[in-house]
């Protein structure tokens, strides 16, 4: 995994730890650098992870600027469309969330300046983590599925594994709408990937040009997202998507939620085990 955008002394401290267990690294201006791993939350010093916050690495403005200039290859204008949405993704699919001062013009965000926080989310690939969900999809032949959880429960990890499994099991054209470049490891003979496009453009352009039978997409948020999904389902395309919610009730009460689109709803259970299901609901929101 390529983390070379992280300042060298911080990177060498990280390399003294088990990098595979790292979930995220948080840089906040003037605050200790925090590393979240499968074993908990730690600070970082020259020797690796520590629970003591004295003599730990403190994030400086230069660190944030350095990370940003490396991620944007010293060419912010080329990455600004992603930056203004609050994230960047590097070439190995590491998602970097960004907070700072938003600059607006004509009620539209133009860019983010004076970056004050950076959250590096390390992508994980857990083979077979989508097996339970896949079993439901295959056995019931109901392929409009929505994966539900709060952030950090591994929705994207499940979708990545699901894409690969569907590619090998079903002989159908699978389209992945990868808005943030997080599906970098995913490839297959039946898979098409559209990257860094919003859902509106990807759905409209791809249904006409790529004739997908299944569309996989992450995080339905806006009214347009839900409308795109509804239109695709009405066109006979199967949709597998994810959404942020902590329960089925919360989902149903969401402002832009559209009923009668999905056949199955999977509520994730455990933050540390991607793919563990709490409940599976049918189209009438009844537990199966």
């Amino acid at each position: 995994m390529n983390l070379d955008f992280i300042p060298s002394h911080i990177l060498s401290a990280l390399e003294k730890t088990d990098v595979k267990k790292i979930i995220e690294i948080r840089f906040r201006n003037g605050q200790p650098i925090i590393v979240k791993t499968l074993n908990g939350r730690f600070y970082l010093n020259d020797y690796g992870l520590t629970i003591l916050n004295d003599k730990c690495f403190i994030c400086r403005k230069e660190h944030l600027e350095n990370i940003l200039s490396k991620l944007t290859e010293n060419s912010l204008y080329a990455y600004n469309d992603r930056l203004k949405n609050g994230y960047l993704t590097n070439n190995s699919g590491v998602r970097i969330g960004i907070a700072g001062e938003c600059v607006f013009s004509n009620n539209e965000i133009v860019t983010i300046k004076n970056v004050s926080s950076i959250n590096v989310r390390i992508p994980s690939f857990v083979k077979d983590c989508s097996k339970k969900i896949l079993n439901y999809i295959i056995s019931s032949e109901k392929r409009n599925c929505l994966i539900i959880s709060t952030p950090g429960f591994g929705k994207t990890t499940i979708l990545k594994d699901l894409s690969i499994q569907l590619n090998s099991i079903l002989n159908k054209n699978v389209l992945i709408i990868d808005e943030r470049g997080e599906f970098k490891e995913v490839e297959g003979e039946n898979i098409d990937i559209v990257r860094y496009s919003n859902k509106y453009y990807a759905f409209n352009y791809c249904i006409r040009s790529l004739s997908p039978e299944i569309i996989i997409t992450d995080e339905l948020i806006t009214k347009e997202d839900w409308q795109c999904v509804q239109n695709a389902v009405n066109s006979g395309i199967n949709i597998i998507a994810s959404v942020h919610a902590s329960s089925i009730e919360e989902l149903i009460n969401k402002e832009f939620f559209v009923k009668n689109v999905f056949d199955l709803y999977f509520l994730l259970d455990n933050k540390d085990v991607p793919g563990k299901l709490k409940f599976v609901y049918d189209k009438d929101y009844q537990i199966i």
Partner: protein
Amino acid sequence: MKLLIGVVGVILCTFIGKILSEKYLKRKNFYSEFYNFNQKMKSEISFKQSTIKNIIDKLDNETFRCYLDEAVLMHNENLYVSFLSDEENDFLKEYVKNIGVFDKDSQLLYLNSVDSQIQILYKNSFDDEKKYRKLYVKLGFLFGLIFLVIVL
């Protein structure tokens, strides 16, 4: 023997004159590339949105390419181009500081704002090269001739 020494003197002085005039040629080529770079940046940002590294890699002038490599990509702030004046070096540093750090519209605005200044610098360097380069060679040759007369 005296004639031989005199001729060697003429050749040597002309050669020194040529070497001293080289900075004008370097300066002209440097600004020519600087001007091209600024134009390329504007078109690449407007259409392809290529990264600065890609634009730098396509540059022909090695001095200018190496300068940008060091200054923009390696963030070296202590560079000094010997054949440019202090004022010109400051302008160059300011330029480097302001590329790659803005969104598309602001970046284009900045590049357009410095365009005429770069054009003037290029024109001046072109005129200087035309004026002084031949002069240095001629002066070198003249000194060589004086040396020849003295020797003979």
